[in-house]
């Protein structure tokens, strides 16, 4: 059994220096709620653990000219109690309420949830509907990448080992009248999502949906937006039948991506059902 070294750099530059030298042999620890389990069961066998949880660059939730900036080290508990996110990204705040348990929310971070690349990561669908970009830092400087491009498959992170997620920038979307996060799990607390989804919309006074973004998680290799579903509803005033149709399209598109599996008999109905329940408040007639 190899000996593991624990490092807690004082500055982001120190962290990036280490990753530049030894990124491939390092696991980054933000909260540790996934990493410590992976260490325990032998799925992670790093030589170094780099604890970035106290780096100031990774903290805080701020409103900037580019959008809402959420530090990668922000905990789910901080997201749950954020007044800024309550106004600017209610679906992201929504996902924090059903995220694991109080004990885990107190420690687990948004950056860790995204970088772990679970298809079921609850913070990902809300970030995706905000077209959130991850700000990455490396020794060569900073760059941005769309959140949905971070996972290249289930638990497969596409980011190079010498870079670290510093923040997420959520694009401002004016005039949103509806936002929600929904999830189906085996029980209410601590359940890993079977299906999760985020949506936000702007509905005109006449009932027409002027703008809609919808993203589905847990069902496809990586969480993603479904443009066919958004297009089916945009510009129309939703009836129960229209929502039913859009839910049907969603289920069909999802199955087209994954193929028919043993779980399809359940998921086909459940995906459509979750979608209809989620968008029911938009039905005006």
């Amino acid at each position: 059994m190899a000996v593991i070294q624990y490092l807690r750099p004082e500055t982001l530059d120190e962290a990036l220096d280490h990753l530049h030298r030894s990124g491939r042999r390092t696991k980054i620890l933000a909260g540790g709620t996934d990493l410590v389990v992976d260490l325990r069961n032998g799925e992670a066998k790093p030589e170094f653990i780099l604890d970035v949880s106290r780096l100031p660059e990774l903290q805080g939730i701020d409103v900037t000219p580019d959008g809402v900036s959420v530090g990668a080290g922000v905990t789910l508990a901080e997201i749950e109690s954020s007044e800024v996110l309550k106004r600017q990204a209610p679906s992201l705040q929504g996902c924090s309420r059903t995220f694991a348990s109080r004990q885990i929310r107190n420690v687990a971070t948004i950056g860790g949830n995204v970088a772990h690349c679970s298809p079921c990561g609850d913070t990902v669908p809300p970030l995706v509907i905000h077209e959130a970009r991850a700000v990455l830092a490396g020794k060569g400087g900073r760059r941005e990448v769309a959140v949905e491009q971070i996972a290249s498959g289930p638990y497969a992170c596409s980011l190079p080992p010498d870079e670290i997620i510093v923040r997420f920038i959520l694009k401002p979307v004016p005039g949103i009248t509806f936002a929600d996060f929904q999830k189906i799990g085996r029980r209410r607390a601590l359940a890993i999502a079977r299906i999760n989804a985020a949506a936000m919309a702007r509905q005109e006074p006449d009932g027409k949906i002027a703008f809609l973004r919808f993203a589905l998680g847990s069902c496809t290799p990586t969480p993603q937006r479904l443009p066919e579903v958004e297009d089916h509803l945009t510009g129309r005033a939703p009836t129960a039948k229209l929502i039913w149709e859009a839910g049907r399209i969603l289920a069909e598109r999802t199955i087209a991506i994954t193929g028919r599996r043993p779980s399809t008999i359940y998921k086909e109905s459940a995906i459509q059902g979750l979608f209809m329940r989620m968008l029911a408040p938009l039905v005006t007639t």
Partner: protein
Amino acid sequence: MQDALVSIRFRLNGRPSSAEFPADTTALRLIRDVLNLKGTKEGCGIGECGACTVIVDGKAVNSCLMLAAQLDGRSVATVEGLGAPDALHPIQEAFVHGHGVQCGFCTPGLLMSTKALLDENPAPTRADIATAIAGNLCRCTGYHHIFASIEAAAAGTSNKD
């Protein structure tokens, strides 16, 4: 081997403390096997049962999901710091009188989740209590007596204040 050991300084149940251990030691292992405080229990070891709940800087956390190294500079409270056998904490009194304990294995974790809740919110609603202890499994009581015990502890706390 030497350089892979981590040494930390932290506060444990109000007193300054220090420890040295291999880097992959969890906070739970530190508490139980290095510091020999056996009140904190290991149930599942993967953050699902809450038996290992301790309080770090005022917040309830699963000590099985945390590296001991993460406690450096922090203030840690375990059930041993809550009360003594001849001087129970009011929350412990409430659990005893309210029959919130059966086999007792989940109890230290529930006490610590309750302590963190009441420190933050001395008058919790039933929904607040449910949120606070959703991460603590009890296979004996069916939870009704635990809710009643926490409500009694909250009422006692607010009476005294």
